[in-house]
C-alpha cells in the first residue's frame, strides 16, 4: 500500500485524485437529498464512479473515493462514523485496481469475454464487501447502527452500480484515457511490483478476511450467534464488544492481504 503514499509526489496523480473526488461528490450530492432508508435499496449511480476510476487511476482513485465521500458528508452532515466511511471508500476505490493487478495484469478492464466478466465481478465484489465490512463494523463498534443494517445494503448498492453502470462507463472512458496517457501506469511508469506469489497470497487473505468479517458481522449483530467463549455481558445488544473482539481481527486480516498484493 506504499503507493497510497508515494503517489502524492506526482502532480498529475494529485490532480487526478481531486478530480476523482469531485466527480464522485458531484453525483453524490444531488442524490443526498434522498437519505438512506434502511432496508430500501436504491440505485446510487455515484457508487459506480470509484470503481471506474480505480481501474484507471489506482491509488489516486482510492484517495478520490475517500475525499469525495467526505465532501458528500459535508453536504449532508458528518458524524463520528464518517471516519470509517473515509477508510471504507478508500478501500472501495483501491481494491478493484489491486485485485485486477493480480487476476488480470495487463488486460483492459473492458468486458469482452465471460472470463473477464468473472474477474471483474470478483474485483468489484471484494471491494464492495470490504467497504461494507468497514462501515458496518465501525458503526456497530460505536453502537450507532447494527452491522446487518448497513453492511448488506452497502454491498448490494455498490454491486448494483458496479455491475450495471461501471462496465458501460469503463468501455466508453478507459480506451480514451489510455490514448491520452493518463492511466496510472503511464503517469507513474516506474513503481515497484510485488512478486506474483506474494500478491496471490495477499488476495487469498483479503478474500478470507472480507468474507469472514461479513459473515460474523451479520451473525453477531442479529444475535443469532456469538462465540461461546465470550462473557454473557457481551452477548447483549448492541453487541458492540462482541463485534470488537470477533470482527476486528478479520478486518485486519483483509487489510494485511491488501498490503501484500
Amino acid at each position, binding site marked *: 500500500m506504499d503507493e497510497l503514499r508515494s503517489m502524492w509526489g506526482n502532480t498529475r496523480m494529485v*490532480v487526478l485524485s481531486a478530480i476523482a473526488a469531485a466527480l464522485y461528490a458531484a453525483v453524490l450530492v444531488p442524490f443526498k437529498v434522498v437519505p438512506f432508508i434502511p432496508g430500501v435499496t436504491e440505485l446510487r449511480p455515484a457508487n459506480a464512479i470509484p470503481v471506474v476510476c480505480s481501474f484507471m487511476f489506482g491509488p489516486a482513485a482510492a484517495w478520490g473515493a475517500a475525499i469525495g465521500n467526505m465532501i458528500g458528508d459535508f453536504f449532508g452532515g458528518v458524524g463520528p462514523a464518517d471516519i470509517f466511511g473515509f477508510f471504507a471508500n478508500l478501500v472501495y476505490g483501491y481494491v478493484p485496481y489491486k485485485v485486477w493487478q493480480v487476476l488480470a495484469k495487463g488486460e483492459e478492464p473492458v468486458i469482452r469475454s465471460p472470463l473477464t466478466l468473472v474477474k471483474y465481478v470478483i474485483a468489484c465484489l471484494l471491494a464492495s464487501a470490504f467497504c461494507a465490512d468497514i462501515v458496518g463494523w465501525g458503526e456497530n463498534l460505536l453502537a450507532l447502527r447494527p452491522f446487518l443494517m448497513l453492511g448488506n445494503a452497502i454491498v448490494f448498492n455498490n454491486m448494483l452500480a458496479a455491475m450495471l453502470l461501471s462496465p458501460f*462507463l469503463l468501455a*466508453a472512458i478507459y480506451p480514451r484515457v489510455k490514448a491520452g496517457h493518463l492511466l496510472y501506469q503511464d503517469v507513474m511508469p516506474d513503481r515497484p511490483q510485488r512478486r506474483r506469489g506474494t500478491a496471490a497470497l495477499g488476495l487469498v487473505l483479503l478474500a478470507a478476511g472480507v468474507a469472514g468479517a461479513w459473515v460474523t458481522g451479520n451473525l453477531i449483530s442479529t444475535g443469532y450467534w456469538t462465540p461461546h467463549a465470550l462473557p454473557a455481558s457481551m452477548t447483549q445488544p448492541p453487541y458492540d464488544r462482541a463485534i470488537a473482539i470477533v470482527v476486528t481481527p478479520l478486518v485486519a486480516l483483509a487489510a494485511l492481504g491488501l498490503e501484500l498484493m
Partner: protein
Amino acid sequence: MPIYLYLDRRTFIHRLHPTVKILTIIGIFWSVYWVDNPVSLLPLGLLLLAGAQLTRAWPNFYSLRWLFILVIFATTVTWIIFYRQGKPLLHLGPLFVSRASLEYGLGRGIKLAELLATSVLFLSTTKVEEFAFGLAEMGVPYRVGFAITLAFRLVPLFIDSALTVVQAQSLRGYDFNRGGLITRVRRYVPVTVPVFMGALRKANNMAMALEARGFGYSARPTSYVHYEMRPFDFAMLLGVALLGAAYFLIYYTGYGAIAPR
C-alpha cells in the same frame, strides 16, 4: 448554485479558531458516546439549538429537515427491532417492543440527530480554507489538504457541467426517466461520459498550471494565513472540556444508562 452549507454571518462562533472548532466537534462526539437514554441527551440538544440560534443557521436546518426527521425515525425503529431487552409490552413474531427498547431506540435516534446537528453547525460556520488550515494544524500532509480543497472547488463546476449535458442530450430526444431499472442505469451513460471526459481533459492542464505556479518547489510551502488563538477560543475549549467531563460523570454515575434492564 449554493451546494455547501456555509453561511457568511460572521458571528463569534464563525470567528472561532479552526482547530478549536474541530476539537469542539470531537468533544461533542465524545460526550454523546457515553450516554444512552434520551433524557440525558437533552442538555446537549438544548446547547445545539442555542448554537443554531447564535449562528443564525436556521435556514440550513430547515432545508435539511427531512434528513433530521428520517434519521430520528429510521434509527429509532431499527433499534427498537434489534434491541430485544426488558419486559415486552408487545411481542408479535419478530416484533418486540419494551420500555427499554423504546428508550434505547429513541436515544439512538436523538444521538444521531445531535451528531448531524453538530456537523451542520460546523459546516454553517466554517469555510473550506479554514477546514484545510485546521487539517494542516492536525498534521494532515500539505498535498492531501490541497487535493481536498481543490476537490471542493471542482464539485460545483462538475455539477454545472452535468446540468448542461442533461440539457444538450434532452434536446436530442434523451429521456432520463424512461424504461426499467437497467435501461435507466444505461441512461446515465450519455450524461456521465461527457462530464468525465471534460474533467479528464482538464487534468493535464491543471497539473501543468500547478507546476507552472511552483507546485513542488518546496515540500512544505509557507502559509500566509494564520489564525490567532483569542481569549474566547480558550473559553470555548474550557467549556467543551467541562461538557465532556459532565457527560462522563453522567455515565459514571449510571444516569446515562437505559433505566430498567
